[in-house]
């Protein structure tokens, strides 16, 4: 077993939070540009112009695009080719997220659910949210960081349909959820959808769906077709950017699926706002860190 300094994971966790807040992924930038180009409504065109200006200013000044620093979510994939210490990784991510907040410094959005006292560190009981998965045939630790803003998170929906409702009930629920959310989740964002699993898994699938690069289709052709159909349906509402009317109401619909119980038929929607922030790092056993999106 090699000797690995877990300070590297802490530093990566810190850098990832800052990178995610300041530097939008190229696929998101391209999606906003494409949306701006195909938009025909004058008010909506004005909205897209402001979005593009905000991205440029954040680049220029190396600052946050959106003030909502969100709750930190780290999606981990742990390679099986190295003996990674999971408990140590968890502690270091906690420290890294905290240091990002205090050292940048940016607003902590993490608050006690009852007293409503802000921890001032972006972390606290149960935070950061950690998703842990594993990778065969890899020795690295992959960390995908998403700061999840509340405008979109507040619009999350979950419904336990029954098998007799069929797949159509799920599709209709997704569309109805997006219409009900209206202008609040800062559209046009990514509509993350989970189908199948249990009540908790289906919401997690919806969250994993927003983590995909914009417009990357589900590898299952039937699911990919459903993504396209829902995208067309949402755009046909004319809700537009910031819900002020327009041709582009979503950048993409992403669906993730799982097997479910014979008597379950669950669906969940988790929206990501138009600044669909994320940052990725691969940490290697020799201490190298590669950053990306």
């Amino acid at each position, binding site marked *: 077993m090699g000797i690995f300094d877990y300070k590297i994971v802490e530093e990566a966790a810190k850098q990832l939070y800052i990178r995610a807040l300041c530097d939008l992924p190229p696929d998101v930038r391209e999606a906003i540009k494409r949306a701006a180009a195909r938009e025909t409504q*004058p*008010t909506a065109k*004005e*909205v897209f*112009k*402001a*979005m593009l*200006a*905000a*991205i440029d*200013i*954040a680049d220029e*000044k190396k*600052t*946050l*695009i*959106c*003030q*909502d620093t969100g709750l930190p979510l780290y999606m981990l994939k742990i390679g099986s080719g190295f003996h990674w210490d999971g408990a140590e990784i968890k502690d270091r991510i906690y420290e890294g997220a905290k240091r990002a907040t205090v050292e940048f*410094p*940016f*607003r902590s959005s993490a608050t006690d659910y009852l007293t409503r006292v802000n921890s001032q560190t972006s972390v606290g009981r149960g935070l950061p949210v950690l998703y842990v998965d594993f990778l065969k045939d890899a020795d690295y630790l992959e960390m995908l960081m998403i700061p999840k*803003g*509340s*405008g979109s998170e*507040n619009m999350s929906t979950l419904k336990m349909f029954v098998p007799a409702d069929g797949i*159509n*009930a799920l*599709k*209709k629920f997704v*569309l109805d959820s997006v*219409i009900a959310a*209206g*202008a*609040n989740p*800062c559209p046009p964002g990514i509509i993350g959808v989970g189908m199948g699993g249990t009540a908790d898994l289906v919401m997690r699938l919806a969250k994993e769906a927003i983590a995909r690069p914009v417009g990357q289709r589900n590898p299952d052709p039937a699911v990919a077709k459903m993504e396209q*159909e*829902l995208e*067309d*349906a949402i755009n*046909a*509402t*004319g*809700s*537009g*950017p*910031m*819900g*002020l*009317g327009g041709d582009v109401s979503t950048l993409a619909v992403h669906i993730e699926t799982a097997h479910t119980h014979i008597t379950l038929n669950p669906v969940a929607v988790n929206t990501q*706002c*138009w*600044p669909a922030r994320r940052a990725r790092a691969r940490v290697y056993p020799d201490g190298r860190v590669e950053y990306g999106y």
Partner: protein
Amino acid sequence: MARYHLQTPFSEEAIRQLRVGDIVHFDGTLFGIRDLTQIYMFDQHHEPPVSLKGMPCIHTAPSLKKVDGKWVPICVGTTTSYRMDRFTPPLIENYGVRAIIGKGGLYEKSLEAMKKFGAVYLAIVGGAASLETQQIVEVEQVYWEHLHPEALYQFRVKDFGPLTVAMDSHGNNLYSEVKAKAMARLPEIYQKLGVA
């Protein structure tokens, strides 16, 4: 869609000319308020230490830092408005606020107050805080500092916008109009999606 460049404080006349869909920029004073600011004002009965008459109020919890005793902006953005709906009618009626700046819109009672007293809701582009921050020339004053980041902020702004008039002083609500259009199209959309 008309374009306006206004100066604070806003007169009733300047506000009454605005119609939903118009685009506004303005220069002058802007007050920052949030959930807690207004709970402090209205539920805990604290009078604001400054006049808000004719002024715009934005729904924000700014990231600021103090440099040599002076507040400077790190990142100032706009939050979703509906949570603060119930404070809006008294803000307009009792304090003469002429514009609420936010995202997502407000409800019927706020629209009524806007119509009655001459005020508007101006929709900012949510998520575009870097742009907003650049348009803030100075943090002139932070009142009720102990409430920070939900204190009462007095900003000086230049070319603040673009802001879309989303609720005007004539009873029009752009969000309701957009939603009504979507609902009218819905049967056809359901049909196409195969879920009718």
